[in-house]
């Protein structure tokens, strides 16, 4: 009790890739604490609106609280504007919600994926206190150090400092992006004890949201 902390780390890895007309958001379903696995079937992905999906690793109790706040804010938005929130708007809302608790943060590392108003794929990546950036691909969580260099290698994005600004979306087709995500997780699962059990992949495109699963190592 003397060393009690309001935070825990439940591990897990989240990846998102944006394409020209789709977005892939994936996360493993393992939830751990320390060396123990709490459950092998916990979804880290949350649908916030018709065209935005959030995957979060970190402290899952904080993540749930965050999801609840966002759901409440989104329902108010729907009553006021009579429409679903767009993904870039949800991105700003998520940033503001995180920064609102700047001095007692949500211990949540999020990636937000979806389709923007033109139907282009978009990925937003965050830190725990709401600093965010629109990118072409992103990875967060315990396996991020293992996956990031591989994604860099496969999808090298243009520098955000270039003028005129270049599109950050990846050149891959939708099935290629899904395959890449599967490869990433299969590799990260080999070396990261907090990643494994099952991979949940959400695919957003003009047809709506589709969900796929792939089994991962369970050790």
């Amino acid at each position, binding site marked *: 009790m003397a060393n009690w902390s309001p*935070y825990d780390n439940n591990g897990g890895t989240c990846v998102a890739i944006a394409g020209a007309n789709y977005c892939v958001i994936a996360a493993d379903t393992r939830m751990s604490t320390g060396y123990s696995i709490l459950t092998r079937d916990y979804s880290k992905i949350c649908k916030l609106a018709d065209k935005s999906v959030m995957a979060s690793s970190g402290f899952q109790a904080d993540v749930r609280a965050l999801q609840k706040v966002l759901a409440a804010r989104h329902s108010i938005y729907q009553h006021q504007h009579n429409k679903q929130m767009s993904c870039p708007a949800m991105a700003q809302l998520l940033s503001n919600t995180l920064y609102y608790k700047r001095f007692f*943060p949500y211990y949540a590392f999020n990636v937000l994926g979806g389709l923007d108003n033109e139907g282009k794929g978009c990925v937003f990546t965050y830190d725990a206190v709401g600093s965010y950036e629109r990118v072409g691909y992103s990875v967060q969580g315990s*396996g991020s*150090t*293992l*996956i*990031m*260099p*591989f994604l*860099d*290698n496969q999808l090298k994005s243009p520098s955000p400092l270039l003028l005129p600004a270049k599109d950050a979306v990846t050149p891959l087709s939708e099935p290629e992006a899904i395959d890449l995500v599967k*490869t*990433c997780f299969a*590799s*990260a699962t*080999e*070396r990261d004890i907090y990643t494994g059990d099952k991979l949940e992949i959400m695919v957003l495109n003009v047809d709506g949201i589709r969900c796929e699963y792939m089994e991962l190592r369970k050790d």
Partner: protein
Amino acid sequence: MLDRAARSTKPGPVTFGILLKLDLESPPSQHSPKTALRFAYSSLSSSSKFQQSPPMSIFEYNGSAVIAMVGKNCFAIASDRRLGVQLQTIATDFQKIYRVHDKLFIGLSGLATDAQTLYQRLVFRHKLYELREERNMKPETFASLVSALLYEKRFGPYFCQPVIAGLGDENKPFICTMDSIGAKELAKDFVVSGTASESLYGACEAMFKPDMEPEELFETISQALLSSVDRDCLSGWGGHVYVVTPTEVTERILKGRMD
């Protein structure tokens, strides 16, 4: 009172990045207004409840990335070229891979001064072996020698994590790594070490294929090295790659991002 508060605003010791610890016993209300302000400032700037970074590891003082991979009757060993002192880059052509003989290489990551000292002792021991036995050392034997030298210093170790790669009997590739006190870890596919080791593990796990020919092995190890060091602040500035086959040794220098 003022004296103590003033002391607590001084920056912490810089040598190994040990974090400044604040004495928070007496409440700020007991200070004079000016002292209380300084107290509040110092506790905000240097002590956060959430992000207390651990003291820097001596293994991360100079920064390094070393990797070895096995191919079909060949192997490759590669490293970055940066030598730094914490965040400052000192040299960008630093050798971390050493040739023991034409079919045996050792890469030493970790504290550069210990790496060089250890290498000198290894050269010495290898020369004695050559004189007595009139032949080159086998990679397995050499790995045991390194392990023994490291364990000799069990309670005051060389702060190095070696990677050993060589061609053994009938040109069978051999790679292994060990920790700073000599616990050997033999691998069939690839081994990594250094400050970029986690990135390297991820890259290798995704890129490695068994039984690659020398050209493909070179491409794979180079891609893995360059993409990994670009995500590590302490290693980079290009790379050294050696590809070793039974008949030849190819050394190549890679250009990379210079940041």
